[in-house]
């Protein structure tokens, strides 16, 4: 996940790109035992250049940053999850809080637990949003160590390195959903969800088509330089898809620091403010203050005059189910007329 990405960069390059040989061995062992693989298995999917092979649908799943859990719950796979991390930075998706409460919490933070706790989970599948929770330097179990322990790791959106984060497209989430459908032996469910989400995006596209794109500044606050989202990465694509245009599209970066004068000159018509509580258990929204900071700098902009901003949960700025749902929210905010009827 982007929040963790900064911490993760050091490790990511080493973590991707190795085939889990142990996985292979484990599969052979199972076959020698004479246990027949379920129909359609073994299944092999690719993620971040690594091949993951599953002999049977995982039934002891551990999820990392919350969008990973949200995506599995959207696929109706809550009963397969045996451990999850804490989530308290923004509201839950409708209906998901109850399921979240039922799953044992194995980490008090948005990160996976440290190595020993993680390995002792005996997970047969780990789903997360970035590499930060697999950083050996942070005391975490690495992707290789988890692979060796029979807990293959899948990273949503292929966010395994800074380069891959910039390469991500919204469509990659459909690949993820189909891959997860195959891994869990529920390809029909996955296809249904893909169709539904594609329908939502198509609906957004139809509604905003032909309308003048709204100039959007996506910010995370700051008095100067301003923390903002440039023209590469997931946030920029969300803005484009929702009928907006990122005023910092020319900045070749995702999350970055941009000078106050550039923000002042950018003349946004609307603000997209990343919303998240910074500390566990703290529920004060951070977005109003951050919006005010941006309005003060872009004082002469239409957005500042109208005080027009959308507080977007930062979890929606990470690949996964919520990310695609949020495109509709964003479009509704940018083009309320288009959703009037």
């Amino acid at each position, binding site marked *: 996940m982007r929040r963790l990405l900064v911490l993760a960069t050091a490790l990511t390059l080493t973590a991707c790109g190795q085939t889990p040989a142990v996985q292979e061995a484990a599969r052979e062992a199972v076959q020698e035992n004479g246990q027949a693989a379920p129909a359609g298995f073994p299944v092999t999917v690719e993620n971040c250049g690594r091949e993951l092979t599953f002999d049977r649908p995982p039934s002891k799943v551990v999820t990392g940053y919350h969008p990973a859990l949200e995506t599995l719950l959207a696929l109706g796979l809550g009963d397969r999850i045996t451990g999850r991390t804490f989530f308290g930075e923004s509201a839950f998706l409708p209906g998901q809080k109850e399921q979240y409460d039922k799953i044992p919490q194995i980490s008090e933070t948005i990160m996976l637990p440290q190595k020993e706790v993680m390995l002792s989970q005996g997970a047969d599948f780990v789903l997360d949003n970035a590499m930060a929770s697999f950083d050996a330097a942070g005391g975490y179990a690495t992707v290789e160590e988890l692979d060796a322990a029979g807990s293959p790791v899948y990273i949503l959106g292929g966010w395994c390195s800074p380069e891959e984060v910039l390469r991500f497209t919204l469509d990659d989430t459909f690949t993820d959903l189909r891959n997860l459908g195959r891994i869990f032996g529920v390809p029909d469910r996955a296809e249904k969800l893909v169709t539904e989400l594609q329908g939502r995006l198509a609906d957004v596209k139809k509604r905003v088509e032909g309308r003048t794109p709204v100039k959007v500044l996506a910010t995370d606050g700051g008095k100067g330089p301003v923390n903002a989202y440039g023209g590469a990465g997931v946030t920029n694509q969300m803005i484009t898809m929702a009928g907006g245009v990122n005023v910092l599209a020319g900045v070749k970066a995702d999350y970055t620091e941009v*000078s106050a004068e550039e923000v002042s000159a950018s003349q946004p018509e609307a603000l997209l403010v990343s919303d998240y509580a910074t500390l566990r258990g703290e529920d004060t929204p951070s977005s109003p203050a951050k919006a005010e900071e941006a309005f003060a700098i872009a004082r002469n902009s239409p957005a500042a005059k109208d005080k027009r901003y959308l507080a977007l949960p930062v979890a929606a700025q990470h690949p996964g189910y919520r990310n695609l749902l949020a495109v509709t929210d964003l479009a509704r905010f940018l083009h309320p007329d288009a959703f009037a009827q």
Partner: protein
Amino acid sequence: MTGTTTRSPAPAGHVLRGRRVSRFVLLVIALAGAAVASTWLAVSIGAVPVALPQAWGIVADRLVPGAVPRTWTPVQEQIIWEFRLPRALLALLVGAGLAVVGAVLQALVRNPLADPFLLGVSSGASFGAVLVLILGASALGGLSLSAAAFAGSLLALGLVYVLAQRAGRLTPSRLVLAGVALAYLFQAAYSFVLQLAQSGRAAQQVLFWLMGSLGGARWHLLPLPAVVLAVGVAYLLTQHRPLNALAAGEETAVSLGVNVSRFRLTLFVLTSLLVGVMVATSGAIAFVGLIVPHAARLLVGADHRRVLPVTALLGAVFLQLVDIAARTVNAPQELALSIVTALFGVPFFLWLLRRRSVDRAVTVG
């Protein structure tokens, strides 16, 4: 390394001295000119192009309303008047302040490696700032980022004093050890807070702050550092004689009639306050306070009467140029200042070192 207080009076001392003075005056004039020129450049260029007539028309219009026909947009006016000019002025102030404090601390603790952050003040300030960045302003009773940073630096100052004094007397070695130890303590404290937060975003913002930035400069933030720095630096500039004595060693200083323990205490409190104010406005900008004083000594010798003004001007020009680079090299993204101070400063300093004798480069007093 002990320095020498005064240059040895050579037989040709008089002639030499006369020539040096004129060279010194020329150097000061040149540096003052460079400060003006670099500030002019700083206002003229930035991430958003504003044509020169507009840029300076805006400044002229603000100074003498109606002096020039208005040919600019409100946004351009905001960029020049609210962002670039205060930022350029702050760069001069902080550059001069950090450099002078560095020079004074090098004399105070008689160590060429001393820099403004040696005595733990910046780590204290960083701790305060990190608390606000991570926990939000409400956590510290509504203190702003810079107020929290300043409070942190005062806390560090107090702790260093308590640890370093014995019967009210400060010794250089105790000061350095107390400062370094507390720096580690505060670093541990803010790292702990950062790790608790487990947020890459917060880490990135904190890192940027820790590496220094003038990006938050606004007019209303200028008066306090301007007054404190002007008064503090002016006072330090008048203390060249006791500084020379102190740099030569405690016995020399005492024999020259300097009340050493009192003078040390004054310097310690004054420099800490100056650093606190600077760190609170611009984060911890590394390298300026370490290298600029040495560069000044390479240019004008060890006498603080010359070192301090040259250090102040050199620091101001240097940070101005560094900030221009930080704003424009990767525009509209900004680089943290400590990155650029080192990238530009190290080659320059190595060049200076090679030009002059190494011995004098490390001579402090």
